[in-house]
């Protein structure tokens, strides 16, 4: 009986900690983790995993590799969190790590034609995968149109030059401010605005024939 009560107490205490962590901002969660609260790291993972996956996937265009890179981001965060300058935003730091890993991946691909071929082949095979993101209640022709549009959009983004694409995704998908993008991409504000302008214009031009 005493054991059951103790287990319940622990569960309640655990739930309270988790709720308290959920209510905290990133900086406080980081402080909690560095103070020895291991569950704080899970909270950080929960907050960022999907956002990072989308960011990396839109940047490199390979879903499986994107997941690997997101895992690598979290491993690096875990390893180096004690060195993180807490006067800065945690999200900017995480996105900087993710952006650098994505950049390295693209660089490796361009150097290694075999990797590029495997990626292209994988994407080609993905054509046969079941529809995952569309509403299953939609009509088949509607689903086809949506999927087709999604592919066109993804292809159009992939056609943007790497440094334009990075800025474009951070702004349009992640909603980062110009200042944050400048910090993540290690550019000045003027360069960020100029790249964003060019990326928007190029993207609009590429996609125009399909949507007009």
């Amino acid at each position, binding site marked *: 009986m005493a054991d059951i009560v103790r287990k319940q107490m622990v569960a309640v205490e655990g739930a309270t900690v988790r709720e308290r962590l959920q209510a905290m901002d990133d900086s406080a969660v980081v402080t909690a983790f560095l103070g020895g609260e291991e569950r704080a*790291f899970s909270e950080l*993972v929960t907050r960022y*995993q*999907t956002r990072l*996956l*989308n960011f990396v*996937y839109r940047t490199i265009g390979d*879903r499986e590799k*994107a*997941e690997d890179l*997101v*895992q690598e981001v*979290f*491993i690096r965060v*875990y*390893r180096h969190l004690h060195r993180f300058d807490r006067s800065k935003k945690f999200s900017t730091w995480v996105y900087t790590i993710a952006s650098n890993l994505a950049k390295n991946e693209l660089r490796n691909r361009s150097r290694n034609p075999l990797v590029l071929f495997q990626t292209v082949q994988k994407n080609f095979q993905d054509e046969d995968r079941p529809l*995952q*993101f*569309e509403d299953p209640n939609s009509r088949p022709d509607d689903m086809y149109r949506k999927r087709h*549009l*999604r592919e066109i*959009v*993804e292809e159009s*983004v992939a056609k943007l030059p790497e440094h334009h694409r990075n800025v474009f995704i951070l702004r*349009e*998908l992640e909603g980062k401010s110009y200042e944050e993008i400048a910090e993540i991409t290690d550019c000045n504000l003027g360069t960020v*605005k100029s790249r*964003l*302008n060019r990326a*928007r*214009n190029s*993207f*609009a*031009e590429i*996609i*125009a024939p399909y*949507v*007009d």
Partner: protein
Amino acid sequence: MDCREFCDKHVAFVDDTLAGIELVRMQRHIAECESCAKHDARVRRALLIFRNLPPIELSAGFSQRLEARLLRECHGEDFLATTQRNLRRGAIAATLASAAMLGYIATTLYHSDSPRDLVMPPVVASLPEPELTPITTSTPAIVASVSAGLTIWPAALFAEQVPTRFAHSKLELANYTR
């Protein structure tokens, strides 16, 4: 406002970060310029499509894989920390042992009865009296009169023996006919 200025400020216009007056100027330009209005509409439509792209979801095994990797990371770290701690302890122990050994050797050598170096009486050396050999060279007047080739060695010898020869009042004539 001209089209160039419109394009330059279009990013801020789309993001709605322009100041009030600039915003009004941009809107007025759109109303007047069909080409810029078209460009603006095209960009906004494209962005709307991109922003509404369905998000990618994580695969089922993602969390487990990450957990396993983090666990490995933790264990790796623990193992590394333990190894480093053990190495540090080993190093300290080895240093202490070396110091003890050196101390022992030094003490043993200091107190040992090994034969010391023999002390010899100091050697007193005295300079022997220089043997005064009879001068074999001629007087300066004779040296000056002989040919250049023959005077080299007697002159050198003479110069060497100057202190003794000049102190010696008795000079002899060289016998060239020997």
